[in-house]
């Protein structure tokens, strides 16, 4: 069973790359839930990644813990000497 959910995680990852153009998302299938973790660039992409995952999740529930990257202006510089 564990082996099968790993194949499913791989298929979801393929779908995330093909449909949502996201490569760095961690996919874990635990029982009936697919967990998504990682960083995306916008709220819309967070939703698109969830939809892409759902399309390959074979009816499982999606737990979307993707985080939208904060792009604040820098506060400090690093001195390299």
């Amino acid at each position, binding site marked *: 069973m564990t082996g099968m959910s790993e194949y499913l995680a791989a298929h979801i990852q393929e779908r995330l790359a093909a449909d949502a*153009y996201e490569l*760095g998302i961690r996919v874990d299938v635990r029982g009936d839930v697919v967990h998504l973790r*990682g*960083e995306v*660039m*916008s709220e*819309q*992409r967070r939703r698109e990644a969830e939809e892409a995952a759902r399309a390959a999740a074979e009816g499982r529930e999606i737990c979307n813990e993707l985080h939208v*990257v*904060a*792009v*604040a*202006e*820098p*506060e*400090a*510089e*690093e*001195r*390299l*000497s």
Partner: protein
Amino acid sequence: MIRVAAAGDLHVGPEVAGAYRARLSALAGQADVFLVAGDLTRHGTAEEGRIAAGELRDLGVPVIAVLGNHDYHSGAEEEITGVLRDAGVTVLEGGGTVLDCTGTRLGIAGGKGFGGGFEGRCASDFGEPEMKAFVRHTRDFAERLGACLQDLDADVTVALTHYSPSADTLEGEPLEIYPFLGSYLLGEAIDAAGADLAVHGHAHKGTEKGLTSGGVRVRNVALPVIQHAYALYRLDVPEATFRRSVRERVSAW
């Protein structure tokens, strides 16, 4: 002293157009140059290339960029390079450029780079043509990067790539995918030529700070890593450079 601003993995698209640029208003006062470490787009279309060019045009500092793997996804890398150049961005792919920063010459050599893995845990130029092509793509680039760094007539040199020259800055990524994130061949070329800093992106879950095996400072500036619109690095010009330039001047007289 040279002030370098750097960011990678902007991954722009229509729904976020203008959002990145809005964070760059202070940049011109903080830095002498802005280095962009690839993955400017989400899936490498010409339309996204135009959006990326819009984010980076007329920033008040020279912008030097390399492309990343996402910028190649739709086969429009040449078009993307073209629109970026039209917007005044210098795009490097195995080439270099030298900027005059108030009397100090800053040399930058760079390009996308590629993977293969790191010392003792890497792909070899052996076996099937597909495997050889993979490793040779990295090796050819590393050779050009090294030659280009060596040829730069500059006081301070920076290597700019998308893929990582060091495993240090991949910390946080799964070990299994390190061969797709960078190559020791890049680090080896940088160490052989010498550089003051190596800047890369691509490893979204990696770490900002690391070193090449030869001790060159490496910085992973992927936006998800730095969590800011750009990182700022201040490079003090080594005294040896001043001594060398003085000597050069003496001999010229």
